[in-house]
């Protein structure tokens, strides 16, 4: 969630991988240099106001201006530029061929995520969540479907613009498992501030489990997208607080939800692999039930927020490109939410 960007230390100073570590080095160097320059300016100011006349004359002389006003900043800034570009060159290094590749497309106001094969064809579609294994460099191919966005997951790498009609590259890598929040870092219209995503770094073992889960999910979806996976309760935590199975089905029936999803126009904008829903205007929902967040990184993902989003997304993210479904009853919204929770 975008929340992951708050707290102390700020993520830029708390790198979770080799690429972001370089950005952190650069940041600290800039802070240090800024301090030195500030100290010099304050010292010069002190001399100019209170220093002996001889020093004052020197400070105001032509030599001081050439040295302190032209040569010093010229040398320091040029050096800094060269050093900074060399230091961070590896972040945008071009594709060698054996890396893991993910295409991320900025859309107003969410992120399309496509896992690519070695030959660059799309192997798996997802949205608003990026899964990577720990210790493996991942090349992101950044694109935009509309206006300029900027991709930034500060724990893992630097910022990179997503430019319409162009493909930019950015490498990310995590050296510890965890969830790392990301945001769009270039103003892109009304809901820019609510355009985020989550990057999940899995350690080796967990990564294999995740991959296997994705494959099984895809197979199950292909067999029957409306099927309720037996025994998997959508309710986490202690079960006794929750309604019985029969009560649940009365109010939250995934099969009814599937029909409503297909009949209410959702399928025109959303894709669910293995079903007839193949719309492309909105985020892919094949794995929406397993997502940490809804609404592009802005809300927790549970039955309540799912119902709230579908029924009333315009109150939560005004102007976003999905209509509020206030023409459906609460029960119908519940059915759809129950269906979407099973898409994982």
């Amino acid at each position, binding site marked *: 969630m975008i929340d992951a960007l708050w707290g102390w230390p700020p993520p830029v100073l708390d790198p979770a991988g080799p690429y972001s570590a370089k950005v952190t080095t650069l940041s600290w160097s800039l802070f240090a240099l800024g301090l030195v320059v500030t100290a010099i300016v304050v010292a010069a100011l002190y001399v100019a106001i209170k220093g002996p006349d001889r020093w004052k004359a020197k400070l105001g002389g032509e030599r001081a201006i050439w040295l302190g006003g032209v040569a010093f900043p010229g040398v320091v800034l040029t050096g800094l530029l060269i050093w900074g570009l060399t230091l961070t060159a590896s972040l945008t290094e071009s594709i060698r061929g054996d890396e893991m590749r993910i295409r991320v497309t900025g859309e107003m106001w969410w992120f399309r995520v496509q896992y690519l094969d070695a030959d660059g064809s799309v192997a798996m579609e997802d949205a608003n969540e990026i899964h990577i294994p720990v210790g493996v460099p991942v090349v992101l191919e950044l694109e935009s479907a509309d206006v300029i966005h900027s991709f930034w997951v500060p724990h893992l790498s630097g910022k990179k613009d997503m430019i319409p009609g162009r493909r930019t590259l950015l490498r990310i890598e995590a050296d510890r498992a965890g969830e790392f929040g990301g945001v769009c870092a270039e103003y892109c219209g009304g809901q820019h501030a609510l355009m985020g995503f989550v990057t999940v770094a899995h350690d080796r073992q967990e990564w294999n489990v995740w991959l296997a889960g994705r494959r099984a999910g895809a197979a199950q979806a292909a067999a029957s997208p409306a099927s309720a996976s037996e025994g998997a309760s959508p309710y986490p*935590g202690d079960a006794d607080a929750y309604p019985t199975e029969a009560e649940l089905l009365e109010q939250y029936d995934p099969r009814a939800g599937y029909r409503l999803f297909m009949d209410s126009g959702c399928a025109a904008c959303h894709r669910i692999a293995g079903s007839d829903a193949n719309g492309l205007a909105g985020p892919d929902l094949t794995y929406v039930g397993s997502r940490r967040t809804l609404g592009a990184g802005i809300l927790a993902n*549970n039955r309540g927020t799912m119902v709230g989003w579908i029924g009333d997304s315009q*109150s939560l993210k005004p102007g976003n490109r999905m209509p509020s479904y206030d023409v459906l009853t609460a029960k119908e919204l519940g059915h759809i939410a129950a269906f979407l929770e099973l898409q994982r």
Partner: protein
Amino acid sequence: MIVMALSACVTLVACKEPVETRREPTNDMKARGLAAIERAGCGSCHKIPGLDWPAGRLGPSLEGFDDVGLIAGALPNRPDVLAAFIRNAPGVKPGSTMPPMPVSASEAEDIAAYLYGIDHD
């Protein structure tokens, strides 16, 4: 104007004594309650005092909740009932359209404390 507002306050206080069961929650509880509300995403359906965003409109506004009569127009207004309602609304009020929410028992208590302790006017 100020005098009018003041006297309005005085009369309000006079006619609405806090009910016995409405404890004055500790600030700790209230802070934990608000954090749980944010984490669970109650704001996706409710306008909640102290929470700028989100402020969904699918459910009733919880503004001034400390002064409501019955919970959701049906249940006795007690902290324990409210905590149970928050976790599993359809379970304690059959037919309620608020979905069960994934909060723990102690989080629900904190949330109830927060909602009751908003403002004692």
